[in-house]
């Protein structure tokens, strides 16, 4: 599904990813943990095509295709989804309009006709139930005045509607209280499927109590420092990141 080889990336003059190697199989859920500044969000941004990041070396294959050669919108149409750590507020564009535009862009790419108005309503009401969202939500401006929890729920809701084959969740747990975290996690779990791979990017182990990964990687100083099973996350929770080779970041401050 996803194969990252020797990926180097920088922001302006600062090299952040220094040779990431990572393979995610079809239907697998991988967690990427690591201290602040280790390059987690950069990796997510590079996969989604954020223009801020410049790839200097290496390659990324998505379903055998060169992901880095695709524009961000093409990646999305091909089934890559990034759940943002900080979703953007866009007052004046309703959630409904925005989602319909996104769904239709994906459909056109696949040679399908634009979605019928009734089908669209049915599609979104089904997915809204999954995330416990109410009707008024669709009429509101995109993320306009949403609380942190609502924004994160909206990200997972969009993922549910767009049905990606590769989802990258960037710090989806950050800023969530335990109730909101449960809602978001159950949404994500409902979307797990043998056809869908996921990359969970998180600082804390807490999220992994609710979304249990198949593989855990530790990103440190721009490289994968350690890979293991789900028990690796628990080990990190006990020892912190400080024990890792080449780690400069602080140990996680919070405990779930």
């Amino acid at each position, binding site marked *: 599904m996803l194969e990252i080889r020797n990926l180097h990336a920088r922001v302006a003059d600062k090299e952040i990813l220094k040779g990431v190697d990572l393979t995610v199989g079809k239907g697998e859920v991988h967690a990427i943990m690591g201290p602040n500044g280790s390059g987690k969000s950069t990796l997510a941004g590079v996969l989604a*095509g954020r*223009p801020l990041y410049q790839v200097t070396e290496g390659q990324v294959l998505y379903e055998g295709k060169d992901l880095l050669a695709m524009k961000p919108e093409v990646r999305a149409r091909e089934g890559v989804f990034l759940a*943002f750590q900080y979703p953007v507020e866009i*007052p*004046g564009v309703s959630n409904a309009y*925005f989602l319909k*535009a*996104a769904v239709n*862009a994906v459909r056109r790419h696949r040679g399908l006709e634009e979605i019928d108005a009734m089908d669209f309503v049915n599609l979104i009401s089904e997915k809204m139930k999954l995330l416990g969202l109410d009707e008024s939500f669709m009429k509101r401006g995109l993320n306009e005045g949403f609380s942190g929890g609502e924004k994160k729920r909206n990200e997972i809701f969009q993922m549910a509607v767009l049905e990606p084959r590769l989802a990258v969740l960037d710090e989806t747990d950050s800023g969530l209280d335990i109730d909101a975290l449960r809602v978001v996690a159950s949404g994500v779990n409902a979307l797990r499927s043998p056809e869908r791979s996921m990359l969970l990017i998180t600082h804390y182990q807490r999220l992994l109590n609710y979304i249990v990964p198949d593989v855990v990687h530790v990103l440190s100083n721009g490289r994968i420092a350690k890979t293991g099973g789900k028990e690796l996350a628990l080990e990190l929770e006990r020892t912190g990141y400080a024990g890792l080779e080449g780690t400069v970041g602080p140990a996680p401050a919070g405990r779930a």
Partner: protein
Amino acid sequence: MTVASAPDPVDAYVGEFDRLVREDGTEPLWVRKVRESGIERFRGLGFPGPKDEAWKYTSVAPIARTPFEMEPRGEAPSIPADLIDPFTFGVLKCSQLVFLNGRFAPKLSYLRWLPEGVRVRSLAEVVRTDPGTVEPRLSRTAELDGNPFTALNTAFMQDGAFINVPEGRIVEEAIHLLFVSTPHRVPTVSHPRNLVLLGDNSQLTVIESYVGLDGGTYLTNSVTEVAVGANAVLDHHKVQREGADAYHVARMDVVQGPGSGVTCHSMAFGGALARNDVNTRFDGEGGDLVLNGLYALEGRQHVDNHTLIDHAKPNCTSSELYKGVLDGGSRGVFYGKVIVRKDAQKTVARQTNKNLMLSKDAHVDSTPGLEILANDVKCTHGSSIGQLDPDAIFYLRSRAIDPETARTLLTYAFAAEIVRQVKVAPLRIKLDQLLLSRLPRGESIRESL
């Protein structure tokens, strides 16, 4: 060797005045006096230059050097009704007065049912048939001040709307005043003049449209005077869609009685050079004013918005938001002033100007300003000039939306903050269309909004 210089433009207008107005013996003497005071003021002021603070960013040299011809008085010749269809508002049920090149066009105008005593008529006709109604009010709200275009309008005013809503009358349907300019061989000018009077506890919705058919140079120089009685409610909209080669200078003056509520939306889309002045004054306590503006410019368009909000009385609230979308090599000017007089305690005033620059060659001069002479007030002002947020564009692209549509959506969203405050739904829809039709892929977005 001597070179014959072009005639001085001020002399040319004075000469025109002598020819047209002084020789016209049909008007009441008081109208003649008003006109004479106008031309005298204009003679004293002349056209503004770069040293005039109020015209610092807007050169009117192209207007001053163009010899404009004025239509003769009287009713306008008829034109096919379908020519004005694009400038009406679809299913909107409204009364409509149409003026062609400054002259009333009765065949294109119609009145729907109006509450008893409400008058919606041609101002020239009222001056002719019932001058006593107009005399005490004309040129009282938009007084002759330092604005030479107001002086010119007062000297040459042709026609416009007279709307009088008596005390307690609620006019539920909008009144649409449509000023149409049609292209001519030579540059032409019209000087529309409107007088809108709202009695105490009355309510009125007005739409003033200034439109032009492309293909000719012309000048529209309009003045609208509005007096709003105690506790009355006015919803005013100005839609400026002049032709591509047009000059548009407009001024509206509003005096608000105690407890009155006024909302003004000013939308500027057209013209080569446009200047729009809105002056409002609270003439009683407890008044509320919402002043909204939008200018969407492209190419070489230049639009200058000047607003003056005079908190002359205590306990009034004003909220002003002007937004500009500037593309191409267009130029925008916002100059806003809020004056809070010495006794105007408990004033709440908020003034904001925001500009979205779509092109490196576009330019804007934004000067918000507060002058506070009272000490117990809440006043804020601010202005911003920025580009589309790259994070927002990326967010939309990450959801499969192409970058062009993303930019159009974000631009539309920026402007929609103003448009969505328009309560008259068919007008709001039309404004959405106008906005989106100027943006790439806007048509496809409009269909699914």
